């Protein structure tokens, strides 16, 4: 079965609507391809998104604010994000002309370098903490990344 990707912008949009409505405690919207349930908690929003054949994914957003791509932004039973441990510039390869450390579809091992973050003129190698398949690289090469930003998603059930 092919992996279906969530439309993250849709999820963010629904969460934003729930967040901006102080009267609303829970919101559920459902279309033939996607169902999103939002349950609000004090100070934030808890959301569950599911696709017909998929497992639920918890999504946290910021009320009245573009959903940050923070460490808790995307996680699930089997999708583990690699997050930025510092602020800096994200590089997929050690040098501009070198091959990327990993590409989507690659299997990574714990401790394997998956990218570099340059901060204060220092190049910091970022390692995967889990074994699995890189299903998505979320950040463009040479982009600035925030602390905690999800850089890529690793599917730990893949082999």
């Amino acid at each position: 079965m092919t992996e279906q990707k969530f439309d993250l912008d849709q999820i963010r949009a629904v969460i934003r609507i729930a967040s901006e409505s102080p009267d609303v405690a829970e919101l559920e919207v459902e279309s033939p391809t996607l169902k999103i349930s939002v349950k609000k908690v004090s100070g934030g929003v808890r959301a569950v998104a599911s696709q017909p054949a998929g497992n639920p994914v918890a999504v946290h957003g910021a009320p009245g604010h573009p959903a940050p791509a923070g460490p808790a932004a995307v996680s699930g039973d089997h999708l583990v994000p690699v997050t930025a441990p510092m602020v800096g510039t994200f590089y997929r390869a050690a040098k501009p002309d070198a091959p990327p450390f990993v590409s989507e579809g690659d299997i990574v091992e714990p401790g394997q370098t998956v990218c570099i973050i340059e901060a204060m003129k220092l190049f910091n190698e970022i390692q995967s903490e889990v074994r699995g398949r890189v299903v998505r690289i979320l950040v463009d090469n040479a982009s600035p990344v925030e602390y905690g930003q999800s850089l890529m998603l690793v599917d730990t059930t893949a082999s």
Partner: protein
Amino acid sequence: MFRKLLIANRGEIAVRVIRACRELGIRTVAVYSDADRHALHVRLADEAFCIGPPAAAESYLNIPNIMSTAELLGVDAIHPGYGFLAENPHFSEICQDVNITFVGPPPEAIAIMGNKAAARQRMKAAGVPVVPGSEGPVRNESEALHISNSVGFPIIVKASAGGGGRGMRVVHTREDIRRALQTAQAEAEAAFGSGELYLEKYVPEPRHIEVQILADRHHNVIHLGARDCSIQRRHQKLLEESPPPGVRERFISALGKAAVRAAHAINYTSAGTVEFLVDRDGHFYFMEMNTRIQVEHPVTEMVTGTDIVKLQIKVAAGEKLGINQGDVEIRGHAIECRINAEDPRHDFRPSPGTVAAFVPPGGPGVRVDTHAYAGYAIPPYYDSLLAKVITWGANRDEAITRMRRALMEFEIAGVPTTIPFHLMVLDNAFFRRGEVYTNFVQRRIDLSTLTPRPAQS
């Protein structure tokens, strides 16, 4: 003028700096910790960047991440606010090294004023009165005894790197000196990493009166009058006002001139505050200088009609102040109450939580500086300041009555606040008469009588 400025801070002061930047046409970058994702400064800034986990040491004090953000987003200035990195000469130097303007004084001025003993010596040399005491740090007990004999008891032992009351001991007799030195040193070492101590004559029931100054890079230094910050609890200011009650204009003018001398003596630029201890006979002594914007700057803005943060940014960009001492005119009276998320009925314990309802006061003569809003979750990691209410009146009476009115209508549900405490102070007959001193709260306010806040009706 700057094109883009990063605010290395959070809370109400980050919002305050964003407001100043917007009025100056400067784009803003907010930085925030994981705990502040929903903070108002993040929502108001043009850009926002997460710089670390909730702990301040890993986020708002994380110089590498802050500097990386500054460089990645191409800012040309950093405003440190107060607290965090505001009085860190090292941070100010790093900014200099990478050609980003630090909105504050030069590192040397921060460093001098950061060392209490060095500051004292410099001030004395500049003709600014200091409390009689040791010339520089005291090395041992016999030296301390010698100085105590010459200035007379009681004396106070202080930490050179001190602040907030830590590393401080009042000594009434020569027999107690040894123990006071030992405990103060231990406290100072634990709190500041330096056990260096100095001695001063102890001034009983002093007032805390400070002078706001502004200095540009063209040798113009002016003062904006004085603030009385005597209403404190454990060395934390709670209520400030300008002008200080019951004080003649001539006295404030003398304080102001001394403050300007102090600034000139250390080649100060930016906004800053020179704090004085004032004794019952009207003698004043240099206490310390805060080389940053202060929480209580709005009371001065209200009576002078200036915008201190805008002027601070303007002079950081190399511009001239554009106003001279003669242009500064004090009008009316202003009071600030710090509304903290603390429970005054339980020893002012910090009370983070979610602000369920938040209806700030409005109307004539009322200013509110806050980062809170209905639904805001106060994180437990930082200070408890939730809002500053500042009222202006044609005279002190009107400012007090208006503050009472504003606090009565301020609706904050979900967390206890210091509002009931402030109402007690405002109703206190001694306060109304302007009889204030730094131990006012201890002496005049019986916190045990604090009842739950009366209902609106």
